[in-house]
């Protein structure tokens, strides 16, 4: 079996090229998945017995909430890689992930509030699930503020890695909050250990939307990482020779 040369892809130059090839097909795939998910969720899935048509918010709310947690875990993973292996790409990936994670955390709170008002009669309650998700949003903001305040990129990476790793403790708290505490928020709609508590078409709509959010995240993170690579490697010869910086030359 051929060994994959991971260190090869850890070089900014290789990553820049690879990300440049991948981001566009992934963005188109995300769009197609989102259209399919919206179609299934809004045109095929039936109304909910208890919540009527209002339940359709979950086709946005559940995927964005999942992603807000997954992205933070990904940042913590790259944080460990950054601290242990001193890999240059790890810090850039964490920084490219943070804005998208913050956006998903915000959307989780926003769509949750729009669900809570008609169903619970309140935009917001200080419930364990909601509060821990709000803390997650603040962790993203803190990460972005800290890494952009430190001038030296390597020091910014290490400081950010610490915030990402320490803050990751909050993610299982969010996930299990509905089990550990008596919360107003309903339990998990989809679980690994038991069959989903929803109709098949509802589940498909949600999974398609979740997949769309995943692929979107990968596409935008690759795209944003390319800008970060250019900024950090701007004095490297390979950057100076890039066709996008030499409009006269044919690639």
């Amino acid at each position, binding site marked *: 079996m051929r060994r994959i040369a991971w260190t090869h892809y850890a070089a900014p130059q290789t990553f820049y090229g690879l990300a440049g090839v991948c981001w566009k097909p992934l963005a188109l795939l995300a769009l197609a998945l989102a259209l399919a998910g919206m179609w299934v969720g809004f045109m095929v899935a039936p109304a909910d017995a208890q919540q009527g048509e209002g339940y359709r918010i979950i086709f946005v709310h559940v995927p964005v909430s999942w992603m807000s947690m997954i992205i933070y875990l990904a940042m913590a993973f790259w944080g460990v890689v950054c601290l242990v292996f001193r890999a240059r790409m790890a810090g850039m990936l964490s920084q490219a992930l943070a804005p998208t994670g913050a956006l998903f955390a915000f959307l989780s709170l926003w769509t949750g509030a*729009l669900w809570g008002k008609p169903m619970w009669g309140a935009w917001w309650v200080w419930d364990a699930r909601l509060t821990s998700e709000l803390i997650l949003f603040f962790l993203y903001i803190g990460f972005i503020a800290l890494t952009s305040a430190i001038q030296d990129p390597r020091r910014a990476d290490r400081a950010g890695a610490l915030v990402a790793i320490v803050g990751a403790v909050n993610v299982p708290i969010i996930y299990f909050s509905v089990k550990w505490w008596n919360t107003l928020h309903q339990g998990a709609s989809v679980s690994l250990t038991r069959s989903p508590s929803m109709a098949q078409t509802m589940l498909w709509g949600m999974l398609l939307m979740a997949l769309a959010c995943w692929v*979107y995240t990968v596409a935008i993170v690759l*795209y944003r990482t390319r*800008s970060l690579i250019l900024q950090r490697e701007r004095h490297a010869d390979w950057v100076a020779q890039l066709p*996008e910086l030499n409009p006269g030359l044919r690639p």
Partner: protein
Amino acid sequence: MRWESWSAFWHMGGYAVYVWGSVGVSFALLGLEAWWARRERERTLAWLRAEQAAHAHDSLGGQP
């Protein structure tokens, strides 16, 4: 399709504000994020071109 009419679809069984408020803001902000990432790349490239041009000028020793 499970809707009797387009107006029933937009009405969302009385939950229109909440459902479309969720969907609309989510897609709008994701679109805004993509636009912002694109602008960041354009700005980075413009900055590097400017830096390259300045550097090329310096290496000519300031000659015209």
